[in-house]
């Protein structure tokens, strides 16, 4: 059982997942941020692989991605940084990004590095399901890695079932038709959507992402799923000057 399956087996609600962009604010903050998040009691970490053209992301993650790329972040370096991460934490870690940098790195080499660093899964929103099934799934299944798909309010039930049966770990439920970093409280339509998804009895647990920014929206999301993901707001809160304190204060404000 991988760390993600274990997490969802042991913890039934209020799972907090944090996304940050590797290489931001400073090139070599990656392991330090992971360590602090672990100490704060965060449940899951999504390490963002920066891309020059992140079409699903709003201004905050566009900015952090650009800074990270300018700082010199790339996949070789990221895997070097994460090489000994298991010496300091056992928290589930997934990589998240866009297809092109992974494609250039080479799918096979990429998976080898995920295994070498003992990471737990991958979120690649612009990878077509067919490409996942052909290029990743056999080895992901064999090595017990999680491929985490997204669903949105416009995803049909038929497709949700297809996505659910081909993935393992959890499903990233996008709260609304939106790019990242748009703050909103849930309206009736979204709540209907969350309830519809929970009535489908999917194989995978769901957690909600996009638009989660504070204690209130986190707790609201937790009513309709196993937990929530915070990305843009977290990145906004990270202070270049005092990494430790800014991260701890923010997580505390969400979790208290």
């Amino acid at each position, binding site marked *: 059982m991988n760390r993600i399956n274990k997490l969802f087996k042991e913890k039934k609600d209020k799972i907090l997942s944090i996304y940050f962009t590797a290489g931001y604010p400073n090139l070599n903050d990656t392991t330090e941020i992971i360590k602090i998040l672990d100490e704060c009691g965060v449940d899951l970490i999504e390490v963002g692989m920066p*891309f*020059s*053209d992140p*079409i*699903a992301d*709003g201004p905050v993650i*566009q900015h952090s991605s*650009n800074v990270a*790329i300018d700082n010199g972040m*790339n*996949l*070789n370096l990221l895997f070097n940084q994460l090489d000994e991460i298991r010496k300091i934490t056992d928290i589930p870690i997934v990589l998240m990004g*866009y*297809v*092109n*940098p*992974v*494609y*250039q*790195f080479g799918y096979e080499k990429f998976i080898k590095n995920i295994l070498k660093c003992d990471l737990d899964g991958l979120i690649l*929103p*612009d*990878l*077509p399901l067919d*490409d996942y099934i052909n290029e990743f799934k056999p080895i992901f299944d064999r090595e017990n890695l999680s491929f985490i*798909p*997204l*669903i*949105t309010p*416009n*995803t*049909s039930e038929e*497709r949700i079932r297809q996505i659910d049966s081909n993935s393992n770990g959890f499903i990233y439920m*996008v709260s609304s*038709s*939106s*790019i990242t970093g*748009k703050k909103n409280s849930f309206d009736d339509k979204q709540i209907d959507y969350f309830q519809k998804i929970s009535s489908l009895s999917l194989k995978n647990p769901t957690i909600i992402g996009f638009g989660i920014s504070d204690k209130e929206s986190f707790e609201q999301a937790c009513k309709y799923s196993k937990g929530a993901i915070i990305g843009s707001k977290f990145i906004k809160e990270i202070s270049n000057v005092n990494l430790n304190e800014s991260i701890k204060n923010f997580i505390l404000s969400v979790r208290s």
Partner: protein
Amino acid sequence: MKYNVNSNGFYGDFGGAYIPEMLFSNIDELRKNYLSIVEKDSFTREFNFYLKKYVGRPTPLYYAKRLSEKYGSKIYLKREDLCHTGAHKINNTIGQILLARELKKTKIIAETGAGQHGVATATVCALMGMECVIYMGEVDIERQRPNVERMRILGAEVRPATSGSRTLKDATNEAMRHWINNPDDTHYIIGSVVGPHPYPDMVARFQSVISEELLGQLKKVEGRDYPDFVIACVGGGSNAAGIFYHYLENPKVKLVGVEAAGLGVSTDKSAATTKLGKKGVLHGSKTLLMQDENGQVTEPYSISAGLDYPGIGPLHAHLFDSKRGVYVSVEDDEAMNAGIELSRLEGIIPAIETAHAFSIFDKIDMKRKVIVINLSGRGDKDLETYIKWGKY
């Protein structure tokens, strides 16, 4: 069909639909419906009606006598510059807005580089009474002022793309983000043969009216319906796709795409994708893409805003890869000189994008051959760039 799109949306290894789930339902709706809509008689009738009565088609095939004499070939110009709004772009926007209406969409978004596609989109939105938002890079807004004002006069809102290189690539990113945020009532009119399947095929089909007309026009003047060479400039590649379309499977016709080399392919100021690109994924399709060794898309450069794009459509990537097409690159100065030459020899000031296609006579031996060059757009919008360049 060896060179056209297959049923999975691929041209050889290129194409597909690499999109986040937030765009899936929109793209899927298009994929499932576009062929049945565009092949309906009523659609074809209306499309042809607007092309004829509104755009001014068929565009003439003009024998360029003085240019032919100078280069010792028979050079014909397909006069897309005479289309309403001044370029071929409107062929596609007429088609897509009729399609959007069939899909019950009420709002239109588009990206634009040189502003030609933006103007063509704003025009059809005015024609059909639809709301229109155009994304345009901040840099392009500066260098294509007249087109920005044309869009505004037509009632469109022009939103600047302020990220990255602030050109066409970034305008496309912003348009895609807008569509993610507004999936239900909005149709995205992509202006070139780029983007996720079915866009490259859809746009190529709408633009294929160019080569369809050419078949009959050439038959009349040359006694055969094909030339030896077809030449077109390539940014994303829509005018090239349109004039190549009916000749894709005819090996007697050499297909030549002309890319913008900017200040030169050995400088970091270029947009020559087939020379500098590698296989990659951008804006929803797998294609040839200018990028660094880490897969970050590099900033292209060309004097012409419409060719200033780091990729090419998957059809062109396949034509290049399979060697069916020849792709040459032309530097800023060569293109500008060719634009002046066409102006002086034939009395036609071409768009700077189009001027690239006229600077290849010393690059490919075409003596005594029948050549058709797609005169994809006129140069009115580029006067400022011509003036700034100044060597005339």
